[in-house]
Every structure is written in C-alpha cells, then in structure tokens.
C-alpha cells in the first residue's frame, strides 16, 4: 500500500513526488516506462531549461538530473522499464515490467504525469505514398540525441512547433540540409527565441500559411508538394510546388497522453485534450491528480515543475485526509481570444495565498489588454505588447481577489484597441 503513486518519471512526476515527500509522505512510488527517469528532457540536449527556477540555462538532461538526484537523496522509490496498463477508480495501479512481472498496487492517491505524444501524419491528413523517411520531430530527436543515428540528408520540416525548430538546428549542425520549415498557420508555432536561434541564425527559411499536400516516393521519400493556404486555411489553387527531399519531419503538435485517463472515464477538456483539474490539480476522479504535459502541453519546463509541486502537495494532503473539498467553487472561463485556462475550477478554501492561471491565446495579438473579470466585473487589467498561441501565459491572482466577494466565475479575455 502506497500513500502516493506517481505515473510517469518526467519532470512533472519527479517534482510531484519530491513535493509529496516534503509534505510528509513516506510511502511514494514513481513508475516510469522508459529505461531512465527524466522523461522527454533526456532527449532535449539543447540549452534553455530552468531559467525561472534555477536562474541559469541548463540542458534538458541537466535539468532532469537535479530532480533525479533529489529524488535519490530523499530515498523515493521508483520503478523503471515499467509500464502502467491500467488505473482503477478505487486507486489500484496495474503495471508490468520484466523483473517483477505483472504487479497490482493500491495507493491512497495517484498523480498522473504521463506527458504527451506527438500528432502524426494521419492526424493532419497528408496524402501521397507511405515511404520511409517520414518522422515526427520527437522521434527524430530520439534517434539523433539518444541513439546516435541520422535520419536524412535533405530535409523539409512541416510545422514550426518548438521541437521542429530545435531539430532544424540540430540536423543542420549534423550536416544535413534543412531546406525549409513550413507552417500552416499565418504565424509560427514555437517560441520566438527558437525562431531566432534555430532558424534565422542558420538561414533556414520559414514559410507561414504553407503546408504539404502530398508525399512522393516509393521506398524512401523523394519529395513533397508544398501548397499555400488562404486566410481560411484552404489550399490556394495553382500554388502547388514540388520540393525534392529525402526526409519529412513533422512537428505538428502534441496531445496529452490520455489512455489511462480515458479508461478512468475522467472529464477531459476538449481544447487541451487533458483532464479537467481544480486548484489542487485534482481531476474529476477524487484523489487522482494530474500535472505537466498530461494536463496541457507546456513550452517551459519550469512551469511544469511549479504546477507539479501543487499536485504533489495536494496529493499528500489528500493521502493524509487533509484536503478540503467543501466550500465555494469558482469556475474559470476562457473568454474572447483565450483558448483554455488551467485550472478549470478553484475551491477557494484550498488557496493559501495565490492562484496561478495558465492559459493560451487563440491567435497572435499585438498591443492588447488582458482583462480578468469576476462575475462579469473587471478586477484586473494587464497590458500586453504581444501574445502568441505558442507561448503559455501565466497570471497570478491574490487570494483576496477570490475572497472579497462571493464570486462564482472568473473570466479572462483579450481586448483589442485602446480603452
């Protein structure tokens, strides 16, 4: 019997487990299906992790190492090469590995930290043949950074998400020719700093409002047909252009890894595709918490860590029977220009001093005001010179904002133009 079981040993799972221990929980188990802890960070050998939390630029593995070390110092138990197959509502966890076999454990509370998966060619509907040489960016990254293999020589990258941008640079440094990066939307998907450091610095062209309509090649990719899209995302007839290449890398989005959550029949958010969570990062199944990319896809790992600490702290409280469930509930509502907000609900009694709202905007905005409303009444306004869907926004609200009146709804919206 464990007090807290953590599914997934990436940055989210590690931070949550450590925080649970710091909150007095002895009996913790972290279950990770890969051969080492650290999650996706192990293949992100580039710099740029930890600026918020450690005030220095670390590589992915370095960032992970700090948490793995701490986990070890605290003596928290973990299992590697172990895949969780099922979680039940009464908090049994079934996992397998080759050493212990098929194992079922009982936990008092569970933290889901399974991360996310990449969208694939099928999900975006690219026609053509099905040759070798089509990779998702994360898979290509794994081949290069963890296994030490090259995936191609003449490369087209579809999608300007961060992994795609980082792979554009990485592949160039490995001697490949990255011919172009294409983005379906009229703006890039990744962080601005990645556009500059990974594309501009290497003279790799980026074409927005462009995509691929078809892949050619019998055995290996021989080329792709590039098309331009109009404002409503339709192919502009006559814009077809063939580009020769031997490799197509897809960086077309990430989706929370939700097999286990779906089996638990927990409520999922249609936009994030992750579970609905409250201020404690607790899902709709009581005592089951979630954090990191399994809830919503993050671009900055520091935010993952902070969010996961909340999950760890509250899972600990839950295991000790100290989590407050009664009291007033505030709902967060994504208003004009906002695609989603996490957390979805806030139980005011559980907030100690502040609550962070994490959200993304629907489109690019310049010189706008982000307005926070409580039951329709403006309580805060933040000026923003630019907002991008690719960059997560965070707004901290003081508990006073929630307690001063009996509010039921907290809305965030974007207002264009001057007041």
């Amino acid at each position, binding site marked *: 019997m464990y007090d807290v079981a953590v599914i997934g040993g990436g940055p989210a799972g590690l931070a949550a487990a450590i925080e649970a221990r710091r909150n007095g929980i002895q009996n913790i188990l972290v279950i990770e299906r890969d051969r080492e802890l650290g999650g996706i960070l192990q293949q992100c050998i580039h710099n740029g992790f930890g600026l918020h939390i450690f005030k220095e630029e670390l590589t992915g593995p370095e960032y992970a190492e700090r948490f793995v070390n701490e986990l070890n110092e605290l003596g928290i138990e973990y299992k590697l090469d172990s*895949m969780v197959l099922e979680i039940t509502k009464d908090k049994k966890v079934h996992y397998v590995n*080759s050493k212990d076999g098929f194992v079922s454990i009982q936990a008092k509370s569970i933290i889901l930290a399974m991360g996310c998966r990449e969208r694939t060619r099928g999900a975006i509907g690219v026609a053509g043949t099905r040759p070798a040489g089509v990779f998702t960016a994360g898979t290509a990254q794994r081949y290069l950074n963890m296994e030490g293999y090259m995936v191609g020589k003449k490369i087209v990258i579809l999608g300007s998400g961060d992994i795609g941008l980082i792979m554009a640079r990485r592949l160039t440094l490995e001697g490949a020719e990255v011919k172009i990066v294409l983005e379906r939307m009229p703006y890039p998907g990744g962080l601005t700093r990645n556009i500059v450091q990974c594309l501009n610095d290497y003279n790799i062209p980026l074409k927005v409002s462009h995509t691929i309509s078809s892949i050619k090649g019998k055995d290996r990719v021989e080329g792709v047909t590039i098309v331009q899209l109009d404002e409503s995302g339709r192919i502009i007839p006559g814009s077809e252009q063939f580009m020769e290449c031997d490799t197509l890398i897809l960086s077309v989005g990430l989706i929370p890894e939700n097999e286990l959550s779906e089996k638990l029949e927990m409520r999922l958010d249609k936009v994030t595709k992750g579970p609905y969570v409250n201020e404690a990062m607790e899902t709709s199944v009581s005592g089951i918490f979630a954090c990191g990319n399994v809830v919503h896809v993050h671009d900055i790992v520091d935010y993952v860590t902070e969010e996961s600490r909340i999950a760890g702290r509250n899972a600990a409280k839950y295991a000790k029977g100290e989590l407050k469930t009664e009291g007033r509930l505030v709902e967060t509502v994504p208003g004009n220009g906002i695609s989603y907000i996490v957390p979805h609900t806030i139980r005011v009694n559980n907030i100690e001093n502040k609550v962070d709202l994490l959200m993304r905007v629907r489109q690019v905005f310049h010189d706008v005001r982000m307005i926070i409303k409580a039951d329709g009444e403006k309580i805060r306004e933040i000026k923003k010179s630019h907002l991008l869907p690719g960059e997560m926004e965070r707004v901290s609200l003081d508990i006073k904002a929630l307690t001063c009146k009996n509010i039921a709804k907290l809305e965030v919206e974007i207002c264009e133009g001057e007041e």
Partner: protein
Amino acid sequence: MYDVVIVGAGIIGTFIARELSRYKLKIAVLDKLNDVACATTKANSAIIHCGYDAKPGTLKAKLNVLGNPMFDSICEELDVHFKRVGSLVLAFNDEEMNTLNELYQRGIQNGLKNIYVVEKEQLKSLEPNLSDSAAGALYAPDCGIIGPFELAVALAENAVENGVELLLNTEVSAIEKNDELFKVQTTAGVIKARYIINCAGVHADHINNMVSKEWFKITPRRGQYFVLDKSAGDLVSKVIFQCPTKMGKGVLVLPTVHGNILVGPDSEDIEDKQNLETTMERLEHVRTAAMKSIQNIPFDKSITSFTGLRASAEKGDFIIEESNDVKGLINVAGIESPGLSASPAIAQYVVQLIKEINGGFAEKEDFNPHRKKVMRFIELGDKEKAELIKNDPSYGRIICRCELITEGEIVDAIHRKAGAATLDGVKRRVRPGMGRCQGGFCSPRVMEILARELNKDILEIVKDSRASKILTGITKEQ
C-alpha cells in the same frame, strides 16, 4: 526441381500453398517482395462477404458462398482473429429499396439463407449511429471481418511448417516451357517446376504472357481509405455498405478486428500498377460519401490513410483455369473482391483442378493444420499475464504503448517461420506502430530488436520494401 511453383505470396498464393502442403509435393512460393502479403492483400476492406453481390452462376458467386463458412475453422486452426459482425447494405430511397430486393433475390439464388431485408424502424436498434435518411437495409448476420495480412502470414507460416519453401525477393522475369518442365527465370536464379500456379495479383497477366497467349488483361482499380483510432471504435459494430447505384458502389464504414474503424474505398481505374498514392481529392470524396451512412464520423480521429489496387479482369469474373495453350500453367487471376472471402474455396478449387490434371496426389501422413499459438499479451487475464512474464521476462517489457505489444511478441514474430524482417513486417504481424502514434514511440525500439535478433546493423533495417532505409548514418558524436 519443384512439383509446384506458386508465383505470388498474397492471400491466394499462400492459401493454395497451405492447401497443397497436405500432399507429398515439393512446393515453392515465390514473391518479388521481401515479405508475404505486401500487395493487395495488405490493403483492402478485410471483409468476409456473404455472397449476395456476385452474379449467380459466376465463380465469384460460387466460391464466395462456399468460402465464407470456412473461415471459422481455418482461423481457429491458424489462431487468427476473425469476427462475424454482420453487415447492412443501406438504401436511402424507394429506388434503392428495389435494388436491395434484387440483391436479396440474388443472395437467395446464390444459395444464401441467412439474409433479411429490414425496415427503417429496425435500423437504429441494429446500428444506433446510422443516418436518419437510411430507408432500409439488407441485413446479413454472417458477414465477417478479418486481418487479411495476419491470415496470409499465418498461412505462409503453416505452409512452411509443412514443408513449403518460401522464396522472397524472387521476382519472376521470364518463363519457358520445354518438354514437361517449366524453367522460371527469377532475380534469384532459375527455378524448375512441373506446374506453375500464377497468383500474381495485378501482375497476373504479365506472368501469363511470359509463356502463354494474352488471354486476359488486368486493370488496376484504386481504392482509398481512412483508418480511425480505436477511441472511435464504437462508431459502428457492423459492416455498413451503401446500396450500389449507377454512380458506383458507395463507400463503407466498418470496424476492424482490432477495434479501429475503416472508411472507404472509392473506386478509380488507373494505369500504373505501382501507384499506391492517396490523394486529397479522393479522400475528400470518401469522406463526403461516407457521411451519407453515418453523419458524425470523427475524421479528426483519423490515424492514417491507405490505398489498395483491385486486380480487375475485363470479363468481370475470377479466372481460375489451366492455360489452353500451355499445359501445367494454372492462372488464378482477376481475383478482385470478393477474393479474400473466396480464398479458402479458391484454394480448394485449385487443388482439385491440379489433382485432376495430375491424376491425384499422395497425402502426407504428418500434415499439421495448426499453427503454434500466438501469445497476445494484452488479451490475457491478469493471472495469465503474470504467468507468461514469469516464464519469459521479455513479455513484461512493453514496446508499443498504443497497442500494448511486448518485446516477447515481437521476438516471436521475428523467429517464426515466414517471420518478420522489417519494421512494417513486425507491424503487420503483431501491431506495434498500428496505433494512434503510428510508430513514433516504438519504431526505434522495434528496430533495435530487429537488429539484435537478426544479427544485423540497425542501419540496414528497413521500413518495408528493400530500399526503404530508415536511418542514413551515425551522428558526429557517436
């Protein structure tokens, strides 16, 4: 020297090989590709039709009706998934209701008993997600679904277990006949045989024309599909056809044996027998056409699309006969739909034919109709899972996170007779890479296992065809 050389290791070639392996014969199955079931057999609707569709009196009708009931026992013997899920042919107006009645009559004429015309009121209870505009349907409870490549792989394995030689990467380029013997030129040398059975799919005319007069011509007719994720799996429980009209046969929506949904195919005559491209326009057509049967198909859950080539002969029926001018050459050509459904009966028919030509064959005493059971980890109960891992720890290592396939299953698929040697070969046999991430997670791991088990450099591991290299070298640091 072989008694029988079978050209083509699709469902037809492998089935005939397996049925002939009951006899004391030296048999080889040749395929130009590097695995079995890599042509039409890997890309079709996977339906075991009942047989109301084909014209009475044709071989198609006869062999389909005979073939359908044979699947239960063959799939039992070979441990292959098969489900009788039933089918509905939908009519959307009075005219189409008339066509349904014709289909029904044809079915009865073809010898079927278990088919029914059902009225609008009954439709929703049979299939809740059907469009309200459906006016009625022809219901055939005996219609089944199967994994066509799994069956072909199992047949090949069982044939090899019973002494058949499987010669892959062996393309037939010329055939000569002198005296009583065929000399078959292949990319792997000359092979001699007393009989040739031509099961070369869309290329069957080409094989025939190497030694015989041009009796027939095969036209490839392309069909495109979507595959939807398992999470859409409860969209339909039966095979949903549309009533054939002047405009064509309509597209299908159906479940697969593994719980995905297939939507397609369209139909398009093309020139190039290698053309396996999907196209935006055609897929869009499939999408719109399918919505007629089921309005809310979640196409956002599409995980991949694919194309199949029908091998269509002019006269519209299967061609299964000894060549008139070249004795000993048996053509099994024009095997378009319902070729898969008819395949067990086609195999028996061919065996009968060749036995008659030869004046019988001696039976083997030790023919084994069974294939070694396949361990499918995820289908086992908790106790069996634990037991299996205890005996072989590699069944405790999950390689494919979507389909939950273990290392043990992959290693087994590689080492069986007619085993997997490519990434897609593993995928077709045990499914890693078939799921929603389409191999993003498991392919590096499967490649590692393939390289280790086959004692090859990982750089040599291919996706599917011989030239489909995945990795192009090592990185600077390595």
